[in-house]
């Protein structure tokens, strides 16, 4: 079959890749085969531009049970036979084209990755990036995405415990919608996405197959935006009720010994589900598309195999148990149909009734080319990383209050309650720390343990310094979980970048991954799952390189957890970590908001970072701290104000700033945590900090109704609260 340029464009394969397919098969592929290759060799499924770099991530640890790429999500052991699995995934392009359904099906997809493994999903988080809300189209996208996340997630009964939202011009034509899901289960009950055992049956369960989502993986997720305007049909429509039934039915099934594996139909639908399951199981598959129940008549084999209709799973059923499995799904009023069987020939055979329409080796299908580049460091980074403070006026002392109020009301800092109150964050009876603190905390029922979750990723830092931005994304996410009292365990991530064929974008991707890897090694948090989203650009302009880190930590005893709110009048407030220097102003929120500049690299000392985190965790485990809050966006003044606002109580202290006032108040120097302790515990905290080699500075005292830093600010907490509460 001679292939046309248009056909290749439709599935986003290059002529060179096509020739490679012909060479490997020893013949021209059939139409259906070409569709399979287009999906499996897409960036979204095949990671052909990122695979070589992803190998840099550390992924081993004595508690890591399932590493990246092995299964649908990574899994860690939290002791006593219990496991936690989690993963993050992007749904950026679909959410731009159809924000409600794009975001909704993003939630659906990540939730399936978790329960497919026999884990009960207990928490969701979202990491969102939009252009400024002053533009109506951005507001439309924002409203749609938040509506979609809530609309889908609330119906499932999975607590959505927050996440983060940032706004910047660079996301105007390309919002980011990353969903993070975590599930819990028992080590012995994990289900694998494997097809093995010749003669075992492949059952398709859940929704019928329609024409929605054709080319989602190859077309939508693997191109830049100006090309996808016409691809609305590539966005799927979600049915959360169906998903809820699937969750319950599949978790029930996971407890039986009737099956050998389960795999969800995500990107590239039946194609990736069957080929990946066969590959992992070292087997082959024989599928008849005529047996696939459909929503509409006249669908071709090609369409059935590439449909991304949601809420579908394949279950690999032990021969002889199909009746029991069907009865289970019938009880949940879900379809289940035998569509094929496992073979031992390592071939994928697709039939359309009597006719074989594809017959190709699993290994060739599932081994896309891996591209390696040696990017040059973009020359423009030098200018960007240099912060020339001589050109930036320091704050006149009388202006401090005004600037603090402005920062608190800034969309990137202000309260996001208007978003998360639309999500059910308490269902499941596990949520100990609600959205709004540094990290969410969920207890593990019937144990003293709790899980802490945080997501983080500062695109501005990465744009100015991709390597350090990557380091800081991991460090800050870990710091957030540490502030809740959790020991950071492992991460998942979503790497949102532009077109990797461009030198500068590939360089950013490479450096960010190197930086993240370094931080993960130092902080002992292996990468256990993740997702790469490339081609995030519109009209040739890429987004800020935005790696989002999803950190999971473990709290041994939930009684000893901590939040960012000040608690008691008379408590003493300390800063743990170095006081900060002028580099902290680099690419800060303050610099952009007040001076309109994005420049200057942040700095970080990972040794100090680790010591500060270890110190705060130990202090919380010993019950010394009444609050702990990461000092990040907006610096020290904003962090102190947030602890006051959340606690509904004042603070008074001194700022012993020797250098610039803006640095001291609003600089974002890393590795700093603000804590409060009762007066009786102050000495013990100081000696603990000394033992961990962590500098400790007394900042002031909790109490009253005013927020005051002597000589600089004296404002009622209610006024700060109002600015922060109503910012969005």
């Amino acid at each position, binding site marked *: 079959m001679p292939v046309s340029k248009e056909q290749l464009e439709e599935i986003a394969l290059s002529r060179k890749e096509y020739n490679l397919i012909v060479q490997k098969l020893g013949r021209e592929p059939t139409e259906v085969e070409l569709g399979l290759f287009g999906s499996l060799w897409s960036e979204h499924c095949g990671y052909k531009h990122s695979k070589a770099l992803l190998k840099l991530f550390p992924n081993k640890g004595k508690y890591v049970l399932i590493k990246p790429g092995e299964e649908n999500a990574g899994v860690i052991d939290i002791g006593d036979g219990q496991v936690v699995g989690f993963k993050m995934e992007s749904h950026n392009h679909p959410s731009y084209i159809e924000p409600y359904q794009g975001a909704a099906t993003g939630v659906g997809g990540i939730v399936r990755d978790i329960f497919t493994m026999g884990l009960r999903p207990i928490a969701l988080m979202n990491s969102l990036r939009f252009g400024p809300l002053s533009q109506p189209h951005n507001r439309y996208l924002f409203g749609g995405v938040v509506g979609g996340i809530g609309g889908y997630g609330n119906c499932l009964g999975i607590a959505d415990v927050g996440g983060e939202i940032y706004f910047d011009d660079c996301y105007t034509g390309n919002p980011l919608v990353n969903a993070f899901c975590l599930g819990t289960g028992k080590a012995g009950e994990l289900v694998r996405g494997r097809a093995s055992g010749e003669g075992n049956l492949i059952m398709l369960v859940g929704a019928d197959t329609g024409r929605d989502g054709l080319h989602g993986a190859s077309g939508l997720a693997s191109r830049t935006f100006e090309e996808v305007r016409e691809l609305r049909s590539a966005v799927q429509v979600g049915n959360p009720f169906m998903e809820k*039934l699937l969750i319950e039915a599949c978790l029930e099934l996971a407890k039986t010994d009737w099956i050998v594996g389960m795999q969800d139909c995500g990107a590239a639908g039946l194609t990736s589900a069957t080929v990946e399951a066969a590959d992992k199981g070292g087997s082959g598959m024989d599928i008849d598309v005529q047996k696939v129940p459909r929503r509409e008549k006249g669908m071709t084999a090609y369409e059935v195999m590439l449909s991304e209709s949601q809420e579908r799973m394949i279950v690999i059923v032990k021969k002889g148990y199909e009746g029991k499995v069907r009865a289970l799904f019938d009880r949940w009023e879900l379809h289940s149909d035998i569509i094929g069987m496992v073979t031992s020939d390592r071939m994928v055979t697709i039939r359309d009734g009597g006719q074989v329409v594809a017959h190709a080796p699993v290994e060739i299908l599932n081994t896309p080319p891996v591209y390696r580049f040696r990017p040059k460091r973009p020359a423009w980074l030098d200018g960007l990383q240099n912060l020339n403070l001589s050109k930036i006026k320091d704050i006149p002392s009388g202006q401090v209050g005004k600037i603090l109020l402005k920062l608190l009301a800034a969309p990137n800092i202000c309260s996001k309650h208007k978003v998360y109150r639309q999500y059910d964050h308490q269902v499941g009876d596990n949520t100990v720390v609600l959205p709004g603190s540094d990290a969410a905390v969920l207890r593990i029922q019937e144990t003293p343990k709790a899980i802490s979750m945080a997501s983080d990723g500062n695109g501005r830092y990465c744009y100015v310094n991709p390597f350090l931005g990557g380091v800081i994304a991991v460090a800050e996410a870990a710091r957030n979980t540490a502030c809740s009292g959790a020991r950071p365990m492992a991460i998942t991530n979503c790497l949102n970048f532009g077109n990797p064929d461009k030198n500068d974008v590939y360089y950013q991707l490479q450096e960010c991954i190197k930086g993240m890897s370094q931080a993960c090694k130092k902080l002992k948090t292996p990468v256990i799952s993740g997702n790469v989203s490339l081609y995030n650009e519109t009209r040739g302009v890429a987004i800020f390189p935005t790696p989002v880190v999803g950190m999971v930590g473990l709290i041994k005893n939930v*009684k000893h957890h901590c939040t960012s709110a000040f608690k008691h009048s008379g408590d003493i407030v300390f800063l743990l970590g170095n006081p900060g220097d002028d580099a902290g102003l680099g690419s800060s929120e303050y610099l952009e908001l007040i001076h309109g500049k994005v420049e200057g690299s942040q700095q970080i000392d990972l040794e100090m970072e680790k010591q500060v985190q270890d110190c705060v965790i130990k202090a919380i485990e010993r019950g010394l701290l009444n609050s702990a809050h990461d000092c990040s966006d907006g610096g020290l003044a904003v962090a102190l104000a947030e602890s006051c606002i959340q606690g509904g109580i004042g603070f008074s202290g001194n700022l012993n700033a020797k250098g610039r006032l803006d640095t001291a108040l609003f600089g974002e120097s890393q590795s700093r945590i603000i804590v409060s302790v009762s007066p009786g515990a102050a000495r013990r905290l100081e000696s603990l900090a000394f033992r961990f080699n962590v500098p400790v500075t007394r900042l002031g005292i909790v109490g009253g109704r005013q927020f005051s830093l002597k000589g600089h600010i004296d404002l009622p907490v209610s006024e700060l609260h109002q600015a922060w509460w109503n910012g969005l």
Partner: protein
Amino acid sequence: MKFGIVVFPGTWSDRDCYYSISNILGQKAAYIWHKDTDLSGFDCIVLPGGFSYGDYLRTGAIARFSPVMEAVADYSQKGRPVIGICNGFQVLCEAHLLPGVLRQNDHLQYRCQWTYLKTINTSTTFTSKCQQDQVLKIPISHYEGRYYADADILKELEDTSRVVFRYATPSGQVTGEANPNGALNNIAGIISKQGNVLGMMPHPERSCEDILGSTDGNLIWESIIASI
């Protein structure tokens, strides 16, 4: 005593009710599948929250036709206690076991937050352990929670002390600001004429432990337990 927790397709509060009743209150509990009709052996029926049948039609409008609901109607006619929480309240209204309806929140958004309920009537099966006007901290999570009824029904409810809970401020003031969804008269929960069927939008099963932020929900469960 033994609680029966009804599970419709799409119900999700069932597990939370089960956990709180068995692990926190130490009572027996069992799930009742929506197709089951035998309710003998249960001392109280719980219709939990969730999205029964996806709530794609009016909330609760399909669930009311489940076989179990006929049994629930019989059960309630015998004067035995039934509590409907959130979606369960909506189902009870659709099944005409309680008057009125739950409409979309006036701001047209889903709302999940802590609310403060003023206990208006403490002489019921569900509130005997509460003090008069006691404020209970119990969270809501719904899109359709705005209680509405015709003026004459509303008057009857008020005149016969069948409004059990109203949304209030933490100090017990019943104000417009404390009303999270636009419910008429700040109504958060009502009771049937016979006094044995309670419907409430807030989730008492979410407020049974200090670690989760409140134990006020226990007062409702303990009242039921004391009445049997």
